[in-house]
């Protein structure tokens, strides 16, 4: 029985101890009375009575519970539950948190750069606002076996008090061993993109030049004007010749009849004729002959003018044939697509290459801007005046008003090592809201390795009243380069050498423009084919000590627009290629002429025959004309003789006149 009594009642208590340890925790007067009664004095101490009933023990058990529960001011059970919860959080903190952050960083980087990202050994200290990792690499989307960039040990300190106000303020960002374009062990490609192989204009040109001229002529014969025109002209000349041969024949007949009449009259011996009537008759006959000659002459004169106009047409027709013929040759030449613009061939190569590269550069600028301005929400201004709340007034206190994101200082430098490499990167006040900090973000990057240097300076400002939004200057010197992806032309497959670049890009309020100056030296050109143009380009590029390329461009609708490229070898290329192309053109023209001549030979021969016939007709016509004139003179003479014989009798004359 005694064993069942709660332990706290089995002790020996002094009066004070009983009061302090047991009675103090009981409130009910019944309970207090019960407990005081149950403890009896045994010498110095108070002890439990020995004859306790079952009910007494039961009551003691309840009282023990009450005393126990009333003793502590803290609910231990709840504290234990919370303690377990905290332990779970701490375990998560130690074992899973870093892994979770690692995945989050990788995923967000992959989303931004569209390529694989890897982070190693991430350590996040939430309360200190510290994040560090051993290495980070982001693959290049274009070259999956290479990294776009790689970071070594990195340590970031974030202002946690501002982070709780949903503002990302990075006080410090230290990173080491920044590397670009490093090789990867495995591909960093996320999504496969279809590569579009576009046939370049130059390829088309070369293909067309190589086409058989005969084939083109065969295909384009219906489009040529010269065969039809020559035929038309020949037909017309034929008609003219026909008409005029008839006319000339008629005139000839008339002349023959005049000749006949003249011969009969010319046989008359006027000295022997005494009969005046006979003379008169003869004169009459002469007059009749004269009038018929006059008619023939007037006909021939009319014919002459017609003949002249026809002759004019015939002469012009030859010229027309020549012109149409030339036009046809040009037409065929056009169909051959001869590279008449080949003088700009290097410019075109550069233009297309630079457009691609500068487009990429602009995309990176936009990407950078996007990353900084991502989900930009207007930052709340500091409350200068206490505002009335539903439950009172908020009294503002002095505090630094930060924007949503601010990287105060990012300083990175690489100490000189055995390879004498110098590298430094300094970013100040990187934020999407420059209005709050009142100054632009600034960037400075410098790298030197042996003689190679790269220097980037830039500023970025989102303040509305500021004219200069973006200023960026990139300077590189003596960097080796190797371009092997020149699939935009048919002449050069790759170039190796050294380059200097000065790229400046600025975004004003309404204008985005940039300029690029590239100096190429020690060039080694790899030609794509044995093409003469490729050889010329290779020769000029390799023999020029310093190839200077200058480009200017604007950005319109997020695209590179108005790209103007020129170089110091433009004229040299223009002259060499011009010379070559003109000789090529001559050859092609000769070939076309030969082929065309073969096809138009019959027509042209016919034309020549007709023209010579026409010439004969003209000669005949002129002979007829001449003969008529002769007969006219001769008849005149005859008439004079007859008139003389008639004498000078006035009477006769008057009679004559009267008649």
């Amino acid at each position, binding site marked *: 029985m005694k064993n069942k009594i709660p332990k706290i009642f089995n002790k020996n208590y002094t009066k004070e101890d009983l009061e302090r340890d047991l009675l103090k925790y009981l409130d009910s007067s019944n309970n207090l009375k019960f407990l005081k009664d149950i403890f009896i004095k045994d010498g110095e101490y108070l002890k439990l009575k020995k004859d306790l009933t079952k009910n007494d023990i039961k009551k003691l058990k309840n009282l023990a519970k009450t005393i126990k529960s009333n003793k502590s001011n803290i609910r231990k059970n709840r504290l234990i539950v919370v303690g377990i919860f905290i332990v779970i959080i701490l375990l998560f903190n130690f074992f899973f948190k870093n892994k979770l952050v690692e995945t989050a960083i990788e995923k967000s980087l992959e989303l931004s750069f569209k390529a694989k990202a890897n982070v190693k050994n991430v350590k996040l200290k939430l309360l200190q606002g510290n994040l560090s990792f051993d290495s980070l690499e982001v693959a290049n989307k274009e070259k999956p076996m290479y990294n776009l960039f790689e970071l070594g040990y990195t340590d970031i300190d974030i202002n946690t008090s501002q982070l709780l106000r949903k503002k990302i303020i990075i006080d410090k960002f230290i990173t080491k061993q920044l590397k670009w374009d490093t090789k990867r062990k495995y591909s960093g490609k996320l999504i496969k993109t279809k590569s579009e192989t576009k046939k370049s204009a130059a390829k088309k040109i070369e293909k067309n030049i190589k086409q058989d001229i005969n084939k083109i002529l065969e295909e384009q014969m219906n489009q040529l004007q010269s065969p039809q025109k020559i035929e038309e002209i020949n037909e017309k000349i034929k008609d003219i010749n026909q008409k005029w041969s008839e006319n000339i024949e008629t005139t000839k007949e008339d002349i023959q009849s005049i000749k006949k009449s003249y011969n009969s009259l010319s046989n008359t011996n006027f000295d022997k004729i005494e009969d005046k009537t006979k003379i008169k008759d003869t004169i009459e006959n002469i007059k009749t002959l004269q009038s018929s000659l006059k008619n023939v002459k007037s006909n021939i004169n009319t014919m002459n003018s017609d003949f002249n106009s026809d002759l004019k047409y015939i002469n012009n027709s030859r010229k027309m044939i020549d012109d149409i013929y030339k036009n046809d040759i040009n037409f065929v030449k056009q169909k051959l697509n001869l590279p008449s613009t080949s003088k700009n061939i290097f410019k075109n190569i550069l233009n297309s290459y630079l457009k691609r590269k500068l487009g990429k550069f602009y995309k990176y600028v936009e990407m950078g801007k996007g990353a900084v301005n991502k989900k930009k929400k207007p930052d709340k201004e500091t409350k200068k005046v206490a505002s009335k709340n539903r439950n*009172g007034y908020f009294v503002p206190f002095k505090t630094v008003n930060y924007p949503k994101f601010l990287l105060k200082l990012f300083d990175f430098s690489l100490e000189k090592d055995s390879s004498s490499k110098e590298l430094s990167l300094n970013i100040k006040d990187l934020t999407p809201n420059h209005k709050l900090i009142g100054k632009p973000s600034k960037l400075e990057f410098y790298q030197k390795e042996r003689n190679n240097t790269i220097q980037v300076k830039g500023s970025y400002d989102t303040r509305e009243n500021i004219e200069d939004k973006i200023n960026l200057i990139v300077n590189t010197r003596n960097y080796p380069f190797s371009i092997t992806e020149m699939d935009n032309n048919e002449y050069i497959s790759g170039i190796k050498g050294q380059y200097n670049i000065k790229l400046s890009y600025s975004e004003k309020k309404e204008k985005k423009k940039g300029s690029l100056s590239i100096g190429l030296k020690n060039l080694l050109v790899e030609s794509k084919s044995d093409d003469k143009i490729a050889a010329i380009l290779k020769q000029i590029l390799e023999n020029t000590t310093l190839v200077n390329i200058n480009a200017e461009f604007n950005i319109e609708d997020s695209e590179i627009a108005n790209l103007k490229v020129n170089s110091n070898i433009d004229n040299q290329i223009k002259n060499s290629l011009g010379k070559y192309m003109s000789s090529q053109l001559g050859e092609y023209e000769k070939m076309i002429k030969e082929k065309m001549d073969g096809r138009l030979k019959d027509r042209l021969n016919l034309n020549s025959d007709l023209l010579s016939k026409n010439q004969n007709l003209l000669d005949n016509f002129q002979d007829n004309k001449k003969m008529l004139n002769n007969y006219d003179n001769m008849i005149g003479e005859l008439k004079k003789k007859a008139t003389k014989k008639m004498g000078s009798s006035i009477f006769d004359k008057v009679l004559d006149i009267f008649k």
Partner: protein
Amino acid sequence: MIIKWIVKILKAINSNKMPNEIAAGIAMGFLLAMMPVKNLFWITIFIITLFLKINLSMQLVSIAVLKTFIFILDPIINRIGLFLLNIKFLEPVFNFLYNMPLMPFTNYNNSIVMGSFLFGVILWYPVYRLSIAGVIKYRLNVRDKIIKSKIYKTITKLPIIKQIITLGHKLQKNYSKIK
């Protein structure tokens, strides 16, 4: 839910529960009722009370009851808060707090929050002491008289009250089983 609370309160008042537990519940309820709810201060104080031996039912009922008319004190509380927040020599302290990571979430710079906290803290002890005295007085003088009174006996015979008492017994059994 409300019936459960009432039963618990009645049980607490009439059982061996320490009067200081009940009194602390009333005093904490008073403090929490004074303060606006949506701030880290209120939440923190409330969470702390969960780990202390305070009669939670009494605390919740106190909050519910006092909240309904505590707004009457708002003008005074507001003045007290504003006065306190505008004390010049305290400004560096407030500035320091304002720039601390979690402090702005406490809304301590709100006149009602500050006023009510101060008012509540000052009045907490008097309320506590008064509540203890009240509970003891009730248990000594009132409880037995009520139990012996004819009205109590009549009321306890009512079906609803019987149900409440049954519920009280059930709760007590469950409580002892869990223990």
